[in-house]
């Protein structure tokens, strides 16, 4: 298979397969969690679990009173990375072109310089959290192989994308193949690693809010 043939495969069937694995895997993961169920609560409720659950889903997205430097760092670096990654993914003109070729849908792109900034910010935030993971005794103790594996899987599409845009390192076609494959691996990994938190975070927050809300407490 030539480089161009490989590129055609990863852009076509490769991407379709990884998307299918992502969607099916994530659906399975969410259904598996849901069907584990939980016991019916026979105590008389004081508040609405639904309303409190929804509120907790929202309020946990922000700083909370009494937060320490560790907390501020987590929230700020988390937002920087996630926003940097999502903006780069959704508003880079060549990504939009790819979406358009698939779905017919398109939207305005951001200027290349802005995309470079969002990608660099995303990478910088990832580097910061990695350094902190080693430097902070609490985070270091908690960390396992998936924390590091997921870091690598997440940083690769951003780094290879930047190299590609600025034509650094490998020939363009080879680098494009590497870039697309790195994204496809990330897609497939999401349902099968802790990266699945991008979806389950809403379930966890809802349960937290619902459990407290049943007792009339907004958590």
């Amino acid at each position, binding site marked *: 298979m030539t480089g161009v043939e490989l590129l055609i495969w990863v852009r076509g069937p490769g991407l379709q397969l990884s998307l299918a694995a992502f969607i099916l895997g994530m659906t399975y*993961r969410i259904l*598996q*969690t*849901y*069907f*584990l*169920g*939980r*016991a019916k*609560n*026979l*105590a*008389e409720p*004081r*508040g609405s679990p639904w309303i409190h659950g929804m509120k*907790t*889903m929202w309020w*946990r997205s922000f700083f*909370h*009173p*009494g*937060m*320490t430097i*560790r*907390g501020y760092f*987590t*929230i700020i670096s*988390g937002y920087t990375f996630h926003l940097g990654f999502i903006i780069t993914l959704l508003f880079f003109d060549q990504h939009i072109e790819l979406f358009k070729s698939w779905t017919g849908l398109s939207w305005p792109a951001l200027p290349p310089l802005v995309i470079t900034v969002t990608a660099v910010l995303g990478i910088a935030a990832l580097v910061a959290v990695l350094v902190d993971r080693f430097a*902070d*005794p*609490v*985070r*270091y*103790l*908690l*960390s*396992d192989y998936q*924390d590091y594996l997921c870091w690598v899987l997440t940083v690769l599409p951003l780094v290879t994308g930047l190299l590609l845009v600025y034509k650094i390192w490998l020939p363009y076609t080879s680098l494009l193949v590497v870039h697309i494959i790195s994204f496809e691996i990330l897609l497939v990994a999401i349902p*099968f*690693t*802790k990266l*699945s*938190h991008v979806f*389950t*975070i809403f*379930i*966890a*927050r*809802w*349960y*937290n*809010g619902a*459990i*407290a809300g049943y*007792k*009339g*407490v*907004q*958590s």
Partner: protein
Amino acid sequence: MTVSVERGIQTLKEHIDAPVASFFTTCVHCGMCADACLFYTETKDPKYTPIYKLKPLRRLWHQEYTFWGKLAAKLGLSKPVTAAELKAWEELVYDSCTMCGRCSMTCPVGNDIVYMIRKMREGMVAAGFAPSGLKAATERAITIGSPMGVKFPALKNQIKHIEADTGLQIPVDVEGAEYMALLSSMEIMNFPEYIGAIAKIFHNADISWTIASDAFEATNSGIQIGSSDLAAELVERVVAAAERLRVAFVISPECGHAYTALRWEGPNLIGRPYPFEVIHILELLDRLRAQNRLPVTGKIKEKLTFHDPCQIVRRGGVVDEPRRLLDMVAADFAEMEDHGIMNWCCGGGGGVSANERAAKLKLTAFNRKRHQLEALGVNTLVTACANCRITLEEGLEFNNMDVAVLGLAETLAEHLEEQSTSATTETP
């Protein structure tokens, strides 16, 4: 692996439900829960990070419910949870966790960590790993009826003194009373003024109430140690007495975990809703206040604050009631910086105060409350939990702090408008 450890691991597996799975799936190991735990903040030891205390349960979840975990287990590559590991985790799960739930309020991804600690304790006790002090307290609760070994004659003796002091009759085993009051052994032995206080308030408000001679104990060591079977047995005794006396309400006393046990876990433990309503004494007092049946006179002039018992406030939902009640009798009520649902625990909840091995750690954890009190500059602290009260008094004494600790009900009773004490409490 012994039979008990196998049973413990099986119990842990059975306790993995949808919330637990979603919590473990979502945890990003950020460590923010450490800053919410007074055992971490006062020691800076990373092992006291709340989510770390669940590591064995997390691994079981990983092995049972994740692709890589199941694959590794099939290939014999996963590390099984062992007796040695559970033994090592005993200190983390019992000594350094009061189940205060503050960590559950701060996790950015929404993990209710104390929900999982409660489940973890079920597995730990089934495996035979629980502190000896807590085991002994639970055994006394089951065999004698009280974790402190208090039998009814001891309560009867206290009642005699209270009746002599107040001139009021304390009703016992009165069928058809509207309210059945429960007590904690700590109140009976260390703070009997609570009983006198509610007697005065109830007499004043013309409330028909009773104590059950065979089920006066509200505390539930089964909840603290993590044994649902034993916890259910203790709840059943209260339910049987309430049904026998045909009361409409059961009053949970100034005790944190008793409220959790009776109000929130009880019906689930026994598998059926109650035929009566559980009401916390603070809720009842606040209802009386709203009905103008709690007239008070005079106010405490000194600046004072309120220590929120975690299980009544953050985990119980009784948040505003103590504040409205305190406002009636306090001229200068000041809140600590973190209060209400974000309060800091006294350090003795969740069975820690019954666990002699944890005594030193408990006093270290108390430093959080010491700093709060010093920052506020108060000499009077009001609370609504006998266990918090004894823990606070110990901590204050250890640190040579001149702070008086008062119970809320007795503080209100002291400010009741003058009533005749010659009459006996009306009973149907």
